[in-house]
């Protein structure tokens, strides 16, 4: 049996959240939601887990700290010349280099984390996406087995949604 997709567009967040709750209650699937702002209510209704971007950030930061420290130490030992009475491998000034590299690489990790986790960039056109969702509408894309799309569309309409039915 084929799958049918129904997109409901809502003018406010509360209606979209109620629609998500109703769809999941009926054992249909919420495939995706689109919103113009981050919505904690939608995230709660969808029972989203915490993002793992932080691990990338942390890994980047740890790498950056050691990289900065090792780079400064390496360049200092290439020319063993005592400057201003400081030791060749001077921990205090190298800490500053280590700190700056920690932030730099943590940010690189952060960006890599976001791009890989959110699957960006993705220039392939999403056929279900309605451009009004970047402006003022909240979109809920739900799926159901073939033949039930009318019921699903009815449910979304009952919650105030403007509905479009898509084939699989």
């Amino acid at each position, binding site marked *: 049996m084929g799958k049918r997709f129904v997109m409901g567009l809502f003018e406010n*967040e509360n209606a979209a959240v109620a629609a998500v709750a109703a769809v999941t209650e009926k054992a249909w699937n919420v495939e*995706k*939601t*689109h*919103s*113009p*702002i*981050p*919505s*904690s*209510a*939608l*995230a709660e209704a*969808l029972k*989203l887990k*915490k*993002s793992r*971007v932080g691990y990338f*950030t942390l890994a980047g930061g740890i790498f950056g700290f050691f990289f*900065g420290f090792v*780079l400064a130490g*390496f*360049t*200092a030992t*290439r*020319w063993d010349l005592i*400057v*201003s009475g400081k030791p060749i491998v*001077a921990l205090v*000034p*190298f800490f*500053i*280099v280590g*700190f*700056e*590299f920690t*932030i*730099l690489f*943590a*940010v690189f990790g*952060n*960006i890599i*984390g*976001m791009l890989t*986790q*959110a*699957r*960006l*960039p*993705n*220039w*392939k056109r*999403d056929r279900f*996406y309605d*451009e*009004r*969702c*970047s*402006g*003022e509408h909240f979109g809920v894309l739900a799926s159901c087995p073939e033949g039930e799309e009318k019921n699903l569309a009815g449910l979304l309409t009952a919650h105030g949604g403007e509905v479009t039915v898509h084939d699989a």
Partner: protein
Amino acid sequence: MADSYLSFKEIDRTVLSTLEPATRRYWTAVVLLAGGVMLGAACWAYQIATGIGVGGQNNPVAWGTYLINFVFWVGIAHSGTLISAILHLFRAGWRNPIARAAETMTVFAVCTAGLFPFIHLGRPWMVYYMIPVPTQRTLWPNFQSPLMFDVVAISTYLTVSSLFWYTGMLPDLAIIRDRAPEGSIRKKIFTILALGWTGAHEQWRHYARTYLFFAALATPLVISVHSVVSWDFALGVVPGWHTTIFAPYFVAGAIHSGLAMVLTLMIPLRRIFKYERIITVTVLENVAKTIIFTGLIVAFAYGTEFFIAWYSHNAAEAAIFKWRPTGDYRIGFWIMVVCNTLVPLLFFFRKIRTSLGWLFGISILVNIGMWFERFVIIITSVAHDFIPYAWGNYAPTLVEFGIMVGSFSLFFLLFILFVKHMPSVSMTEMKELTHPGGQEHG
């Protein structure tokens, strides 16, 4: 706070209308500023062809307006991060209408600042000495030097603030893409720039986390950057420089000048782009209140410097602090004191801090005062060093003035090009602000 009755549609309409084709007055401003940039470039080219001696720097004042402008522009950059990152972490909603423009100011101010070490080098092609790659003599940079801290800190700051700025723009770029006519060049450009953003819950989930970490990382970075800049001076054993208060003193001064520049940019922007319902007087008033706070910190730092000079019984330190308010550069000193510490106190009066004319006028005076603060710090200390027979004064030359005009023109040119072609107010953050029960991203 912004007008809470603004609907999502009105926010989009107001911001998108600023991207409509520009008027002749706009292009006249662009041409004038481009002329200023050309003047600066011509002066720099003349300096490269003739030699660094065309500037006024000489013994004992080897650091002149090039270093003053470097510190000035790095300082200007700081409040952008204060507004976008630090106030974001504090959940200060009033920063949302001005965050984008302040971030833009940060990025362009760092770019402008970054030019000055090149200009000051005299032979800019020798910059590779500061990059950690082996030269033909396998000579590596010395990371014990505060000048190398600077290279690392400023390039990190430019990279991080640019990425933060672009990441923050992603949802807005998608709005412009979605509103652009099908098949238009704008649609194509913004389709690429938006990276395929659709506001899907999976995207928001990771984006919100990323934005929060960005803010958390940018906060210590911004404090470290101007601290590092201050150590260019404080690590030198020069009277007036060699002091432990320099890092917090510079950071407070940077935020002070940056906030003043925010007002200088926001007030005309608000009027020209009809942003009255977005950048309300309350928002500008909050910036003014923060300026009172930073002005008091700066005043405390000025006082502390004099106290240290007196209490330390250090003859050289005492001499320099006696000379600053009474010597050859006393006018600069008093401009600094009056504009940075006394004039901002006018913001204690509600009538003044809610009047656009006063806000704009005072912001210009604080900018002037902060430029003179860098002049006083950099010039006076080396002009009157330890040995009286080596004393000498400094005055900028026409070439230096030309390069300074070029730097200001470049900053304002980049800013006006940006605000006319990209979203100068974050539509998404404005929606979060006006949305009942909405969360800030992150």
